């Protein structure tokens, strides 16, 4: 017989841990993007003159032609709902007290995945215009949640 007899109906086990902690730099593009978000309350993109494409959030290169991008542009804080979902359950399986709406909001040729609020989930429509609602400047930290949510225009 296998040498490890165990009183319980399961294999003998050993507790382990897979620790991973990180300290990320924002990067060249993201640092510029988040400084503008925090300090000016604006959303920045970069434009590729060869492909006529406006990347939002801005990047330092065009993924299509691989040119270096230097043309930074503020985009309108208003975009369109490209698609959305409504979250009813938490990760631990419990029900949310309030459903949460998450949408992909098209800005330029890119966009942001973010929360939608100030609207009933049943009233959300694909294609509707939504605007970014920023935290007050003193509460902003250079984080994607400096935009509290998007709301219908």
């Amino acid at each position, binding site marked *: 017989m296998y040498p490890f007899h165990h009183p319980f109906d399961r294999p003998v086990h050993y507790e382990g841990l897979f*620790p*991973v902690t990180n300290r990320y730099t924002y990067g*060249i*593009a*993201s640092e510029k993007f988040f400084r503008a978000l925090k300090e000016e309350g604006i959303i920045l993109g970069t434009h590729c003159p060869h492909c006529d494409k406006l990347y939002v959030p801005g990047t330092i290169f065009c*993924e299509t032609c691989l040119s*270096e991008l230097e043309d930074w542009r503020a985009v309108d804080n208003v975009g369109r709902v490209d698609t959305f979902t409504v979250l009813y359950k938490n990760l631990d399986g419990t029900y949310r007290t309030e459903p949460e709406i998450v949408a992909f909001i098209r800005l330029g040729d890119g966009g942001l995945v973010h929360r939608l609020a100030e609207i009933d989930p049943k009233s959300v429509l694909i294609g509707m215009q939504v605007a970014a609602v920023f935290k007050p400047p003193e509460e902003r930290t250079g984080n994607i949640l400096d935009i509290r949510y998007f709301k219908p225009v």
Partner: protein
Amino acid sequence: MGLRKVAVVGAGMTQFVRRAQETPKELAFKATRAALDSCELSIQDIDAICLGTAPDTFDGIHMNGEYLSDGVGALGKPYIRSYVGGGTGVFVPIQGWYHVASGLFDLVLVVAEEKMSSYYPHPQGAFLTIFDHTTERPLKPNLLWIFALEMNRYMATYGISKEDIAQVSVLHKRNAADHPAALLGDKKITVQDVLNSEVLAWPVQRLDVSPVSDGAVAIVLAAEHVARRITDKPIWIEGVGWSLDTAYWTNRDLAYPRYVEVAAKMAYEMAGIKEPRKEIHIAEPYDPFDYKALHHLEGLQLADRGKAIELYLNGSAKRDGNLPICPSGGLLGVGNPIAAAGLMKIAELFWQLRGEADGRQIPGSPQKGIAQAWGDLMQVGTVVIMGK
């Protein structure tokens, strides 16, 4: 074997630094752009892309190969990421080589990237989880002390002193002072400096080890008929080899890297090299630790067992010696962003063989060079031989 000839036609790299502001993707982009610009190609010319990066834990992004893909221009192209630990930087050009040698693609971009500084507080932490979870991990092993065990075994087997081994670190760090992308070049470093540096895990001291680094390197590979259109100085990949030793480090000979020997013999046979000590003019053995360069030179059959140190003591290893070793400055001097460090050695052979290594140039028009890396669970050897 019905394989096509494959040339390296371009190379580029970022600075190797301790902590880059760039994201991993931005580092990969900068190296890619530099490599394409060096041979005046655009990303549209490239048929397929091979990317190498070591554990996802360094960059801190799970599925890092996919995350990096747009930075290297992989959009809409055949793309594959390889990972054989520290051996990745010399494996990924082998992968690129068979993409072209097979006849499947004419122009392949090969990129290697690593951003070790993201892992916090220290990237050694990433290695806590590569060991057996019951027999080893309770002791909290890391690579420094595993290699201290190996170094001690190597020194004891052949009676080599720490003073002699320190010569390796001194030569590589001095060489790196001539490399524009180097992190730890130092023209004035001495054996005493190495011996006086802090002891990390005896016999390994601070200056016996390569530094944690961020960086990226890229090269462009071409089939023969395309290579001749792009450049009049193609550098051919003449032989490749790779091999695994046992996964369990206690089951292998710690004083001799058999995994390098098997990989090297595969590469020598492909390249038609019968007397490597005469036919190889530049060696870039993998040198994350100073003793490891010696270990690997012996595995590469460029020195008898326990005798590689003599190449350093008699001056052969210098740039103007009989067998220049790590003219780039190696991992000990240029830096060690894991996968990128191995590909840096391939780029160095490319520049040296073309006569474009500037202040690092080896005199006398070298004809053939060898680069090697080592990794996985300290068991893989990866070897590439290049020639004019």
